[in-house]
């Protein structure tokens, strides 16, 4: 180990210095007797050997100008202590607990430590410092860590080679009582390596044994020591904020987990809902397709067959007349079926489809009548969702209004107007016929009760404006966002659009 060689060299230096000190008076006084020289030489020998023995007591190197640091470093230090056996690459855990006397008011607390060769220092389980140079004493100001109650000092020392030791001192000054020194001595315990969370242990456990005192300061091989003093960083108590505490983090975690679980549950509900809706739409599309494919195709064929058969009958025969009836009936049936398919088909759940259908219907309906049908439809109506109950009831109400106009108005022209007004759809049926005086108690000649009921069902309104000789105007207003609000999930509102051929073929 280095220190052995160093120690020898230092001792030689000390001896030489001592010899020089002894010799100088002789040089100063040349008149000294020869016999005295011999005696002096003998003395020198004696002294030099004594110097070798007592070298540790003298400052090794020329003492620095200011030796306060040395005094400070060594004044409040204990003894070298270590495990009972020492070996290379050894880790030794040393532990001591102390209690601040009740009512004591500490003014300052300074901790000094060094370990040959290195250490980690723990204060109440918290690592507050490390060192790896045994020749330097490190000083820590632990005043602010010194709260009342028990404290645990723990040092994990590490020995590289040969001798090992811990030197420790905690000096506490009080306001109201004498100073206290906690030094390294046999009251420290050696903690076995198997011990867990030993740095925070309040009491020594079974199997811990007292530390062995190796010797005092400057004991061999640490005769010339220390080389320096360093001051550790100021230590402040750890402030544990409430969000750093375990219970808080646990509650937060629980809360988060609950929230996640809640979200998952909601998501599942939503997807179930969406799935149910999708299933319903799929089912409606399937029904529409089945009606169309099976019945529709056969009805079309019936019409064709009827037409062909009719042509094969002699003109104006009763058979031909009956075939004519069959054809007309089959066409009507086919048309009625189209209406059912339109109503059932989820693909038609849009405002645009509704508009297109109502316009076609009005034109067809009024075609055999003397009333000219005029359309006034807002251009570029969006393809927004228009649910089945809404479109069905609105359509039936319009049908009623058209029926009234055809039956009673005697009009020449009828306007079907479809416009949007903000979030509402306004459908107006206007004729220029003879009109009437609407009376609240005038019975239900015009199917008004019916129309009102239909519109109420879908959250809309129905208004009638008429006067004798001034035509009639029925205005239906319905909300465009359906009452069962799914507004915050707009994608669920999109009508599903399966490939066309699926329906049509």
């Amino acid at each position: 180990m280095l220190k052995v060689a160093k120690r020898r060299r230092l001792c030689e230096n000390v001896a030489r210095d001592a010899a020089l000190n002894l010799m100088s008076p002789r040089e100063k006084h040349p008149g000294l007797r020869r016999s005295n020289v011999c005696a002096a030489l003998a003395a020198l020998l004696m002294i030099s050997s004594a110097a070798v023995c007592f070298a540790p007591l003298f400052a090794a190197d020329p003492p620095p100008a200011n030796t306060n640091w040395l005094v400070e470093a060594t004044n409040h230090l204990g003894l070298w202590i270590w495990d009972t056996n020492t070996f290379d690459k050894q880790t030794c855990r040393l532990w001591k607990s102390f209690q601040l006397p009740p009512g004591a008011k500490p003014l300052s607390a300074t901790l000094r430590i060094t370990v040959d060769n290195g250490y980690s220092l723990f204060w109440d389980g918290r690592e507050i410092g490390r060192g790896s140079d045994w020749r330097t004493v490190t000083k820590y100001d632990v005043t602010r860590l010194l709260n009342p109650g028990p404290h645990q000092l723990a040092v994990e020392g590490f020995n590289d080679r040969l001798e090992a030791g811990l030197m420790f001192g905690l000096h506490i000054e009080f306001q109201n009582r004498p100073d206290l020194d906690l030094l390294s001595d046999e009251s420290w315990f050696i903690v076995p390596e198997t011990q867990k969370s030993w740095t925070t242990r309040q009491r020594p456990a079974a199997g811990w044994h007292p530390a062995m005192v190796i010797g005092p300061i400057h004991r061999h091989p640490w005769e010339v020591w220390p080389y320096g003093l360093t001051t550790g960083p100021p230590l402040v108590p750890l402030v544990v904020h409430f969000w750093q505490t375990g219970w808080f983090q646990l509650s937060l975690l629980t809360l988060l987990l609950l929230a996640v679980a809640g979200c998952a549950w909601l998501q599942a509900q939503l997807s179930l809902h969406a799935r149910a809706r999708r299933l319903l739409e799929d089912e409606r599309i399937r029904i529409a397709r089945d009606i169309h494919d099976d019945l529709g195709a056969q009805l079309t064929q019936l019409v064709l067959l009827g037409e062909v058969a009719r042509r094969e009958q002699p003109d104006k025969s009763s058979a031909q007349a009956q075939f004519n009836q069959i054809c007309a009936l089959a066409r009507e049936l086919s048309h009625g079926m189209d209406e059912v398919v339109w109503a059932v088909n989820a693909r038609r759940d849009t405002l645009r489809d509704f508009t297109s259908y109502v316009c076609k219907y009005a034109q067809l309906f009024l075609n055999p009548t003397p009333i000219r049908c005029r359309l006034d439809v807002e251009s570029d109506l969006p393809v927004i969702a228009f649910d089945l109950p809404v479109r069905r009831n609105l359509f039936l109400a319009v049908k009623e209004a058209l029926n009234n106009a055809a039956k009673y108005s005697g009009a020449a022209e009828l306007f079907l107007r479809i416009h949007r007004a903000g979030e509402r759809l306004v459908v107006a049926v206007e004729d220029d016929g003879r009109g009437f005086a609407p009376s609240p108690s005038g019975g239900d000649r015009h199917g008004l009760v019916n129309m009102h009921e239909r519109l109420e069902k879908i959250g809309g309104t129905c208004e009638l404006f008429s006067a004798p000789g001034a035509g009639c105007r029925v205005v239906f207003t319905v909300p465009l966002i359906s009452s069962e609000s799914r507004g915050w999930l707009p994608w669920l509102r999109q009508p599903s659009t399966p490939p066309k051929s699926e329906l049509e073929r």
Partner: protein
Amino acid sequence: MGDDDVLLLHNSHGLPHIAAMMPAYSSPVKVVLVEDKPGVRDSWVKLINSLPGFACANTCASGEEALRLIPTLNPGVVLMDIFLPRMSGIECTARLKLQMPKLQILILTAVEDDELVFKALEAGADGYLLKRTTPESLRAAMLDVLGGGAPMTSEIARRVVESFRRASQQPRPLVHLSTREEQVLVLLSKGYSNKEIASELAIGTETVGSHLKHIYEKMHVRSRAEAVARYVSGNV
């Protein structure tokens, strides 16, 4: 509900007028039917043959067969079912029109689906009919397209107006409607009949028909130009 076909097809020409245009001695107009269901096909053939001035020259059971046969037959009118196995009636129409731009194609459909009809018209169809139409209306529609007219419903008219207006807002519209064409379309979309449009605009009923015909052509041209533009810009 009455006879819907009268309304579906606003004849631009009266029947007697066209009949007068066709000399009595001329051979009947050749009609080719594209329809995949054999039973329906037979009925149609009988019906067509029963119409004065028309004869069903041939039938095709698929779009592929139609593409092979029709150019060799050079018919006056093609009646095209919209739902065919494999190649759809719309695609078949587009391909036929590419080869024979003068060919008159009427789409037959079982349901009124404006979107499908619109697509068929863009593909180059000259009109459309419901399958349950009366033979008289079928004859009227065929005569109409042969006479240079084009049947159009108010629904389709509205869509056509909207589509052209939307297209004209784009930076480089490919095809424009003329003012008169737009006037005709707007009146049609408001429910006016061809005769009413004619008197409203002080033009002949034939002129209304030919305007509609031009509009169809423009739709077809535009959709093709758009297809080319999409192809060129790589957005296919």
